[in-house]
């Protein structure tokens, strides 16, 4: 088979690792090199193939003894052989690497006498593939971790989308288009081109025009890239500045938390290599990370929007003077930003000065969405019950009935205050439904607790409440407040309640000052008490009889003060 040469070169028996063997083994090992598992070529000084073994024939099927080496092997090996002839070398110096018929080969020369060289060829293809795969895997995991940290550093949806698209264009394709779930009929589209700017538009597009896109937007697994005809990609997918025709396309879903976060389209031009299967798998991994980040950002944004909307709806009104009575309100939301609190107040002005104005201040048990919903319900119900506000007990009965449910015992406590100015005085009807009693500062600086008491609303089958009628003289103020104020924890030890006694003292010092200043003073003192501590919602409303002017025009008539009632509280049933 082998052996077209006249002599067996002596060197072949001196293989590495066998030098320790006794010399008499050599002749027996002599010819076995022809059976060596690696290809071996013996080349003479003129570049002629002297001998080749079986493994070399498998690698170079056309090669025969006597052939010219440069006609049978690639130029890198021929070049290496020529360099061997140029001077003395030790074996390792002449080592060369290159491809032969699709295999990756390392060629080690062993010079023998008379300019002949034996080339030992070692097939390194598999090791090379493994090394490449390893280095690709390392690179990809680096990219993925970079992607995750870049994407998770923002909870802003447009920014997150921009980062995802731009990283996809940089690491996966020449261009990337991120198609977000539709808003109405239009899809937010984010275009990124490698090295180019990222653009975001919201457009009505036909997603069914891109194979697999409609499915990807519903979260179905991606269509293999080889099934997608690049020529069929509609124009809207191709970013501005994308050069040349589209050569290959990947469409992959962005899986979110339960719901798809959109789809990613990757494009390569026809001059680039088409996407490999490995790249498709990688694109899916990338999409999983991007989808998770986008979905988190979207959930956060939605939640923040819901909270903001609710807060907007629950935000207390700005109060001013109504029909000759001063009103001022203060509200400080709990520090737990994600939890909408349950304090509220409203002022429903009477249709004219002769009609009572209804003031409501209340507190709903619990926090968050549940409390917000209940608060909204109470405010709306009370608004609807305004025509019945002449009878607080009736209002509370109806409100209680409207709130009662077998599902929970979430209740509200509130104070109703019906206010009307008669002459210089302000007549008040006050009813507490399980709420802290209102306080009144009299002109002489004393502070009274209004003796109204009643049952909380929304949890018991019936409610009882005692309405108290009283009168404010000019300069006197009635304060409605929630327990967030008296239960504010702070002070020198950090864990002491602000308490009713401190509130009374602060309020007593406010005699004769306008309603707005009263509320500000209370808020300021409580804030100082709190320091940086956590607190619940805090709300307060002050109702004042203005100190200025003994006579005021009410309803077109000048009325003198001093009608019914007087300082002090009077009970009615």
């Amino acid at each position, binding site marked *: 088979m082998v052996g077209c040469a006249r002599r067996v070169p002596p060197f072949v028996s001196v293989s590495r690792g066998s030098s320790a063997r006794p010399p008499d083994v050599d002749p027996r090992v002599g010819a076995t090199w022809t059976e060596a598992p690696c290809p071996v070529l013996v080349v003479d000084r003129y570049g002629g193939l002297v001998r080749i073994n079986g493994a070399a024939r498998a690698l170079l099927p056309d090669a025969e003894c006597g052939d010219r080496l440069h006609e049978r092997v690639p130029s890198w090996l021929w070049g290496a052989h020529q360099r061997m002839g140029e001077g003395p070398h030790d074996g390792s110096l002449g080592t060369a690497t290159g491809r032969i018929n699709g295999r990756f080969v390392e060629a080690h020369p062993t010079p023998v006498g008379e300019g002949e060289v034996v080339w030992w060829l070692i097939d390194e293809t598999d090791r090379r593939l493994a090394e490449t795969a390893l280095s690709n895997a390392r690179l990809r995991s680096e990219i993925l971790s970079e992607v995750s940290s870049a994407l998770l550093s923002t909870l802003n949806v447009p920014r997150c989308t921009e980062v995802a698209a731009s990283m996809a264009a940089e690491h996966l394709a020449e261009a990337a288009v991120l198609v977000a779930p539709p808003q109405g009929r239009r899809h937010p589209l984010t275009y990124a081109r490698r090295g180019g700017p990222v653009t975001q538009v919201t457009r009505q597009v036909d997603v069914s025009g891109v194979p697999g896109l409609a499915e990807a937007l519903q979260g179905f697994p991606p269509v293999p890239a080889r099934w997608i005809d690049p020529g069929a990609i509609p124009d809207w997918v191709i970013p501005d500045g994308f050069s040349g025709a589209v050569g290959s396309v990947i469409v992959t879903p962005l899986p979110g938390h339960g719901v798809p976060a959109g789809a990613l389209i990757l494009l390569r031009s026809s001059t680039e290599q088409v996407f490999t299967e490995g790249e498709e798998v990688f694109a899916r991994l990338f999409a999983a990370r991007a989808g998770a980040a986008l979905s988190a950002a979207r959930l956060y944004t939605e939640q923040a929007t819901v909270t903001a909307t609710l807060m907007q709806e629950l935000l207390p009104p700005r109060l001013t003077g109504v029909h000759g009575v001063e009103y001022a309100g203060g509200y400080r939301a709990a520090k737990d930003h994600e939890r909408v609190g349950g304090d509220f107040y409203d002022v429903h002005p009477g249709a004219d000065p002769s009609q009572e104005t209804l003031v409501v201040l209340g507190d709903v*048990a619990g926090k968050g969405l549940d409390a917000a919903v209940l608060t909204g319900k109470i405010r709306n119900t009370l608004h609807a019950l305004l025509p019945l506000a002449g009878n607080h007990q009736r209002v509370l009965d109806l409100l209680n009935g409207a709130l009662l449910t077998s599902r929970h015992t979430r*209740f509200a406590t509130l104070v109703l205050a019906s206010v009307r100015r008669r002459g210089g005085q302000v007549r008040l009807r006050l009813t507490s439904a*399980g709420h*802290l009693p209102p306080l009144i500062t009299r002109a002489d600086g004393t502070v009274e607790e209004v003796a109204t008491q009643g*049952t909380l609303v929304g949890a018991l089958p019936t409610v009882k409440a005692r309405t108290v009628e009283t009168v404010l003289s000019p300069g006197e103020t009635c304060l409605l407040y929630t327990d967030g104020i008296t239960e504010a924890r702070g002070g020198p030890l950090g864990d002491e309640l602000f308490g009713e006694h401190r509130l009374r003292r602060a309020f007593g010092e406010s005699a004769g000052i306008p309603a707005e200043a009263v509320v500000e003073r209370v808020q300021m003192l409580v804030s100082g008490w709190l320091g940086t501590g956590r607190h619940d919602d805090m709300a307060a409303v002050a109702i004042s009889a203005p100190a200025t002017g003994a006579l005021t025009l009410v309803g077109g008539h000048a009325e003198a003060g001093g009608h019914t009632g007087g300082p002090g509280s009077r009970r009615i049933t």
Partner: protein
Amino acid sequence: MTSLSPAEFALSFFREPATLTVRVCGELDYDTSEDLVDAVVARLEEGPPPREVRLDFGALTWIDSSGLAALLMIHRRTDSAGAVLRLENRPGFLERLLHVTNVLEHLTAPASGGRG
């Protein structure tokens, strides 16, 4: 907020044939009130209902409106199970809350529902 750490919320249960006693320790608030309701309801549902459920508040350090809502819910459940609810060793702040909200009478009224 403060270096003083509030007493850990804890519940202990003592069951006698006719009485279930629950000792409530720590703060009964938005974060813990559901635990109390769940635990009491679970014990009401296992075996024949007691004639009396005693909530011992001797070690209660604070209660807020969510805590009161929990008491109202427990009353609903004891009432429908035919058991009387007793609120024992009430600290001042609990007493004040029950007074302002006017629910003490309701919470400790003889059971109306059930056939116990």
